[in-house]
């Protein structure tokens, strides 16, 4: 009975926590520019993510070690420090984007510019971390995040052409504007396959004291949670394809995205969009701040848990305090969060090999995983992700220049 409750909660939190500024903006841009054509990128990203998240949970449940623990232990400090530098730098940019997303949501609601929200928002995020427990953060934020289901309602209400959407699930290449199309596809993949989610999930499994008996549950949560989440991303794309593309609106600024649901849901649509973004970005900001602090604490062997009093894991608490405060600075300077989002999504793709290649080794490590190590199917998926990630790393940088 308790397990069923945990299972339901797990799925709900993965759905509520799935969307964040990166996935919304990239999906909306794709829909506004290319109609249903880029749905395949979300599908591909989501399938990869399902497998990666399942593995992250399994590693933690079986070995009682997180991905970061295992990376440091197997690969040693010098290599680990390179991974840490790359992942933390990109995760920090994503944090800036999420904090900015909260600010932008508050801006369209209140009319007060996002720069003024930078400090209050980061203080609120920090307070939730300072006082909250892991359960409060994971479940609370994700339950609020369920308001993002309104994207699906909006998409269905606009009567999409299901046949055309199904067509979009197969990759195609446009005749002209290949660079921009490629850049958007790379950003979508970067937004879907985000390493911080893996680190957060595996740390969460330790916080929730998972053991081997959780392996089936982990599979179901990863499978269903990420699938429904992926559907929400697709709904954003479809809604943008129906509301913005026919009008010739391209999303350069947040104000344009705010009109996404108004044709379907009118006044409700506007406020649902604002609150969806507010809660989705809040949840993501909390998750990323935690993921960064976990990274340092686990990598360097500090004590860590969001459930402890800050003074019991002082270096951990100090790390997220500093990270959140630093995150407010670019926003205070007035840097457009949408630009940060696009850049961080492309850079996520570029740093993906750093996260995934060591992960493949860990998932085949018989010392950590014993008989639960990857089979051929999981290994093939990781191999494909690595292949994609190298292609992304190589092409995302030139595309950043040409398409960005």
């Amino acid at each position, binding site marked *: 009975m308790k397990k069923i409750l945990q299972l339901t909660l797990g799925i709900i939190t993965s759905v509520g926590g799935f969307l964040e500024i990166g996935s919304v903006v990239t999906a909306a841009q794709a829909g506004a520019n290319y109609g249903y054509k880029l749905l395949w990128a979300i599908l591909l990203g989501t399938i990869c993510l399902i497998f990666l998240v399942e593995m992250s949970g399994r590693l933690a449940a079986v070995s009682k070690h997180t991905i970061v623990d295992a990376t440091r232990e*197997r*690969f*040693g400090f010098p290599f680990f420090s390179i991974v840490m530098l790359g992942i933390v730098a990109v995760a920090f940019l994503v944090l800036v984007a999420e904090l900015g997303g909260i600010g932008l949501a508050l801006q369209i609601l209140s009319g007060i510019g996002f720069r003024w929200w930078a400090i209050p928002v980061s203080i609120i995020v920090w307070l939730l971390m300072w006082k909250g427990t892991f359960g409060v953060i994971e479940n609370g934020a994700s339950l609020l995040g369920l308001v993002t289901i309104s994207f699906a309602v909006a998409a269905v209400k606009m009567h999409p052409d299901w046949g055309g959407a199904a067509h979009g699930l197969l990759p195609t290449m446009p005749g002209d504007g290949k660079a921009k199309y490629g850049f958007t596809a790379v950003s979508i993949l970067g937004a879907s396959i985000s390493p911080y989610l893996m680190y957060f999930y595996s740390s969460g499994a330790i916080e929730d004291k998972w053991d081997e008996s959780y392996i089936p549950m982990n599979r179901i949560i990863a499978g269903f949670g990420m699938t429904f989440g992926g559907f929400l991303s697709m709904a954003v794309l479809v809604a943008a394809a129906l509301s913005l593309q026919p009008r010739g609106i391209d999303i350069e600024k947040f104000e344009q995205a705010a009109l996404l649901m108004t044709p379907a849901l009118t006044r409700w649509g506007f406020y649902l969009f604002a609150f969806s973004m507010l809660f989705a970005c809040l949840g993501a900001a909390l998750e990323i701040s935690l993921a960064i602090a976990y990274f340092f604490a686990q990598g360097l062997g500090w004590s860590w848990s969001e459930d402890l009093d800050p003074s019991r894991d002082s270096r951990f608490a100090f790390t997220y305090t500093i990270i959140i405060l630093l995150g407010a600075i670019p926003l205070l300077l007035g840097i457009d969060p949408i630009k940060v989002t696009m850049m961080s999504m492309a850079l996520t793709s570029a740093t993906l090999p750093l996260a995934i290649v060591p992960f*493949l*080794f860990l998932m*085949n*490590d*018989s*010392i*950590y995983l014993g008989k639960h*190590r990857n089979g051929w199917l999981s290994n093939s998926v990781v191999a494909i992700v690595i292949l994609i990630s190298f292609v992304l790393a190589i092409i995302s940088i030139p595309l950043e220049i040409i398409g960005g």
Partner: protein
Amino acid sequence: MKEINAELLIGRKVCDANGEKVGRIEEFRVTNTEKACLVEGYLVGTSALVDRLSAWTLIRPIDKALRGRVFSVYEIPWEQMDLSDPKHPKLRIPKSELRHSK
């Protein structure tokens, strides 16, 4: 008697008595008794690296395809390693007298 940092030996190139390159130190084989942790030998070569990463399940198929030619390993007993200059570890014997180990 002197103290050196074992972790800084990892990845150092080893030359034999004639100055010929042998490989890099990847691993130390030790025995842990009640009283002390004694170093029995040094593992040099890519195979030792694979072992250190606990990656044989992943690498073995590749190794088989290459018929074991690439992933070599030497086990150097402690008596034959000269660590008087920790930055340039040397063998006391020529490379040809080393035995390959699995």
